């Protein structure tokens, strides 16, 4: 695959992934709390959240795979980046953060959201616990996205030396 096509796909999928992450954290969490208060939450949990999560988790996979291809094709090296070797170290930090975020999506957010949304059976106590784990994993990803985006673009601009 041409490098520019891969990078374009990487950024496109990344925008979809992180855009939905910010939607969950800045809009849906607060919106659902307000909707629960007036009993209008059913539409969000039945029709909106499952569709948003579908795009969210698959965009995460596409972002990671196209990113891994980019590291190899751009001459940085997948292994060099993840071992934080020399000039590959800054984007390697971004790659590690993105990988942790991918793990959180597939192994913490999605399995717990399935319980919260009733896609898999769970009693009220299990749902409450799952909601808390999914919420904190989602917030952790929002926190990680801030340095992740910085270290992803550093490769094109160089690491600024402020100190």
């Amino acid at each position, binding site marked *: 695959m041409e490098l520019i096509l891969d990078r374009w796909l990487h950024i496109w999928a990344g925008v979809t992934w992180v855009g939905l992450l910010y939607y969950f*954290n*800045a809009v849906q969490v607060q919106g659902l709390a307000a909707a629960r208060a007036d009993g209008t939450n059913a539409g969000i949990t039945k029709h909106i959240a499952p569709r948003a999560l579908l795009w969210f988790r698959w965009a995460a996979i596409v972002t990671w795979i196209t990113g891994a291809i980019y590291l190899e094709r751009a001459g940085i090296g997948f292994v060099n980046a993840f071992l*934080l070797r*020399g*000039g590959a*170290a*800054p984007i390697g*930090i971004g790659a590690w953060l993105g990988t942790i975020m991918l793990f959180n999506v597939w192994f913490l957010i999605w399995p717990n959201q399935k319980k919260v949304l009733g896609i898999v059976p769970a009693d009220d106590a299990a749902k409450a616990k799952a909601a808390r784990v999914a919420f*904190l994993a989602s*917030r*952790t990803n*929002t*926190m*990680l*996205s*801030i*340095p992740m985006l*910085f*270290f992803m673009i550093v490769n094109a601009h160089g*690491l600024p*030396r*402020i*100190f």
Partner: protein
Amino acid sequence: MKNPLDTLWGTIISGLILLVILYVIATKFLH
């Protein structure tokens, strides 16, 4: 102590602090 991730602003500030920590590590130890 309240979990900073419970609020959106706490999450953003935590992300910025993490950015500074990783930036220092990257410039002082990895480059």
